[in-house]
């Protein structure tokens, strides 16, 4: 079964909040490389991990994850 891509804004949120990969990984209880793979879209998290990431950034889960690409900064759409 081909894996459907899940897009995310973890890198943007992390940069915005000034959180390092290691700090985010420690807060989530995952390996720091897993955060990197998530940011690169090479790993789609479980629902549980996705909810915990959203909880960490204190935003709704759909702000962090989407089935469609997020619009680029400055684009009108």
């Amino acid at each position, binding site marked *: 079964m081909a894996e459907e891509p899940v897009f995310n804004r973890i890198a943007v949120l992390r940069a915005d909040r000034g959180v390092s*990969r290691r700090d985010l990984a420690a807060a989530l209880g995952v390996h720091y490389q897993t955060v*990197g793979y998530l940011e690169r879209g090479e790993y789609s998290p479980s629902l549980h991990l996705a909810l915990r990431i959203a909880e960490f950034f204190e935003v709704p889960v759909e702000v962090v994850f989407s089935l469609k690409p997020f619009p680029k900064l400055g684009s009108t759409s």
Partner: protein
Amino acid sequence: MNWGERWHAHVARSMEHPMFVPLYRTRARRRLLVAMGATGLLVMWADAIVSWCIAPSDMAVTVNFVLLAVALVCYLPAVTALNAATRGLASLPEHRLDERQVTERLRAYTVANTLMRLILTVVTALVLAAMWGDGPAARVPGAAVALGLISVWLTHYLLPLLVAGWRLPDPPPDDDDPDDEQ
């Protein structure tokens, strides 16, 4: 924390050691390590075949020791570096891995299981073919049986790590390590 947990914590920390990073930084290097580990396994299988052909004899003992030494020289560095590259994906207990690592481990086990089934099929066919002509009088030297069993065990043990090392994508750069940002 019991001794087992302490040992696993020590192993997990060792795998983060930057000393190993140059060995597995690129996919080509990781695949070279996998080839090295596979060579170690092939030498073990060759050792079993040689024992079948020439044991028991002084020559067989000498050849055994030389081939075992060659297998160890290939096996030890390859397994150490691949374990570090995969961060213990195939060797640490599941509760020490996160969900991505557990998923990768299951994928590696699945592929390794298929490969092992193929290997066992080929080995069984070859052994039966080699013994076919002698019928019930066929004899196999004990050294060949022992080395064959060790080779089967080692192949079964090592295949998940080799598969995981082969499949491993380039790790994302570590934002605390300026070398990795390049």
